[in-house]
């Protein structure tokens, strides 16, 4: 037994090796003379992590880039769903293991501005090869926070009505038209509702998340209201306009019973695809979830002839993992978001084109509409994007307060007026706190 103590250092060596062996991101290119490796995070694919057309299109483009460059190698990794991208990134940043390029919601830009290693793209955007002014203005604006450009547009969406043509025809209701008012919308939803077959006219995401709030925002704007006061110090949604907008939804949910409330925000797409709801308000990403429905797309109903919608731009954000990798990442992003790649991706996935030059290309929208029925209307609907949500760091808290106010009214727990007033009081409290 005399030599057993030798085991001690041996075991420690083993443990130490096990703990440091796997670097995970394999990103130490450069010192070996091989290509610089950069890591690209995305959240495409189904919630269960199955590949889809968006994912495939991304892989195809990355392969094309890697084949064309011997000095850079891009490693695409599906980090998570896009909903969890910010959270996952936060953890990675804490561990100093941030990806070089990552997909993020545009609404996360104010948060990301706090991270020291986020790359300021302002200078890069002035490069003529980038052609920054060619990006759709709504998307470019959301990339800018306090004068710094912190993201490159990766996707732009907007909301419109998607409706089931068969259900409309069966009920003898006229299809939605571009000049529909919200009263027309409400009346149609009531007519399309049939308790006997458990069919609803409309279904609404009521989990009090930002998804709930951004369905309400365009209605608020159309009615002439705004989320915050002009100087951003006070809540402004508790106005007459705010109540008028919420009242439409409340009446549909409570008085008419024509609106299915998806309180967990997990069922709407299934309900629409199985013909249990005649209308949804959603974006182009959802169309692929409706293979069983002959659907049509129409712009949002309006108040007083205003049919504006809301855009949800997503971003590529670059992180600094050493100058060499950051430089490689910028070169990749420049290529990846150039008009030619945007065009290819758009036709492969149905994503709305992010470049003005692509939209204006003769015949492009027709080609897009041909492969993805309905997407053409969404592409044209980009012109109805007039306003954006506040780009401030406290927005997530404001969103929670507004989301709960909307759901409280939809459940009939509070009047629209009371719900918005309570939320405004909370929001004013949040805004009053020193930054």
């Amino acid at each position, binding site marked *: 037994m005399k030599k057993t103590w030798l085991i001690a250092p041996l075991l420690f060596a083993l443990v130490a090796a096990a*703990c440091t062996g796997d670097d995970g991101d394999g990103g130490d290119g450069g010192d070996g003379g091989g290509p610089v490796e950069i890591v690209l995070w995305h959240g495409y694919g189904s919630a269960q992590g199955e590949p889809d057309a968006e994912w495939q299109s991304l892989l195809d483009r990355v392969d094309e880039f890697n084949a064309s460059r011997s000095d850079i190698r891009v490693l695409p990794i599906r980090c998570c769903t896009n909903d969890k991208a910010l959270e996952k990134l936060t953890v990675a940043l804490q561990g100093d293991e941030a990806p070089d390029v990552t997909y993020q919601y545009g609404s996360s830009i104010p*948060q990301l501005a*706090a991270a020291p290693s986020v790359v300021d793209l302002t200078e890069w955007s002035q490069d003529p090869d980038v052609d920054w002014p060619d990006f759709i203005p709504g998307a470019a604006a959301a990339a800018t926070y306090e004068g710094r450009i912190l993201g490159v547009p990766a996707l732009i969406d907007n909301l419109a009505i998607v409706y089931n043509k068969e259900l409309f025809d069966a009920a003898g209701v006229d299809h939605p038209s571009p000049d529909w008012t919200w009263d027309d919308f409400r009346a149609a939803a009531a007519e399309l509702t049939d308790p006997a077959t458990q069919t609803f006219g409309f279904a609404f995401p009521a989990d009090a998340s930002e998804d709930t709030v951004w369905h309400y925002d365009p209605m608020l704007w159309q009615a002439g209201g705004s989320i915050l006061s002009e100087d951003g110090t006070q809540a402004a949604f508790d106005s007459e306009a705010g109540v008028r907008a919420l009242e439409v939804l409340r009446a549909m949910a409570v008085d008419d019973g024509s609106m299915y409330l998806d309180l*967990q925000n997990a069922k709407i797409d299934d309900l629409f695809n199985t013909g249990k709801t005649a209308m949804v308000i959603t974006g182009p990403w959802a169309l692929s979830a409706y293979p069983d429905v002959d659907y049509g797309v129409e712009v949002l109903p309006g108040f007083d002839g205003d049919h504006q919608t809301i855009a949800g731009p997503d971003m590529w954000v670059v992180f600094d993992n050493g100058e060499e990798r950051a430089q490689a990442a910028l070169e990749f992003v420049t290529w990846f978001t150039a008009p030619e790649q945007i065009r290819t991706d758009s036709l492969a996935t149905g994503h709305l084109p992010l470049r003005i030059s692509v939209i204006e290309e003769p015949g492009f929208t027709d080609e897009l509409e041909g492969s993805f029925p309905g997407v053409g209307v969404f592409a044209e609907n980009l012109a109805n994007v007039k306003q954006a949500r506040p780009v401030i760091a406290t927005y997530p808290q404001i969103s929670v307060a507004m989301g709960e106010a909307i759901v409280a009214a939809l459940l009939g727990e509070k009047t629209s007026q009371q719900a918005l007033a309570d939320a405004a009081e909370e929001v004013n409290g949040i805004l009053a706190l020193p930054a």
Partner: protein
Amino acid sequence: MERVRRALTSDHAIGWVFVAPSVLLVAIFGLYPILSGLWLSFQKASLLSPVREFAGLENYRAIMDDPRLKQAAINTIYYTVLFVPISILGALAIAIALNRRIRFIRFYRLAVFIPVVTSTIATGIMFLWLLDSTYGLANWALGGIGLGPFGFFERPSQAMPSLVAMTIWGWLGFDTIIYLAALQGIPQELSEAAAIDGAGRWSTFRNVTWPLVGPATLLLVVWSTLSALQLFDEVFFVTKGGPLGRTSVVVFYVYRLAFEQGLAIPLAGYAAAIAYVLFLVVLALALVQFWMGNRMVHYSS
């Protein structure tokens, strides 16, 4: 020199060497986060920004006037008070039913245990549809016997009981297995002796079975209380705290503060402070339960 050599070759040193890998893992993944969390709770900090200021007890003071936290705390207590007794008594009843020699007994035992090893997400999706007020099977079945219709997760007042029902379904198998093991450890002679003394079924249960499964009951009470107070997965995935915060529980609230709202504004320190208070409450409760339990529970030698 001799002393060093002896110390190194003693069983004691070798013992440490053998546990070193797990000690190291616990230190890295357990102790370090616990301590850095404690440090964080005294700071004004967000997770994305490197700027961190010492805030003293400010975060702990803020706990007292936070209406959303108050609601989450009440919900957590409500959940625990429903979950712990129902799941334990339910499991005991099922364990007694399964503790006999009948045909297909293995199948029944397996059936009871399967929910425990089913992923929470799968359970969640299933219950979302089962308990859908319009399309769900539950309302259809309950309607058949003249009950309902219920709103379940869609009605603020029914959401928490629905959540309790769902989690009990998922956990019952675990408690049942523990009770089954305890029941099978009861010597046959005792029940026989009780029968000879003229004890009926209830009396046998009351005077023989119940005291003898006491240690299992104590274990389950402590264990279930701890897990109930730290409920997260089901809320996160199924109800998201809604409707109107009626199923928001403390751990879920901490998560939302730190990872959703407090990434750029300094709420992470506050979230850590709440987590620490919860930790102390859980610790104190567990100690009290063990202390009371040990005075009441009968351990057979």
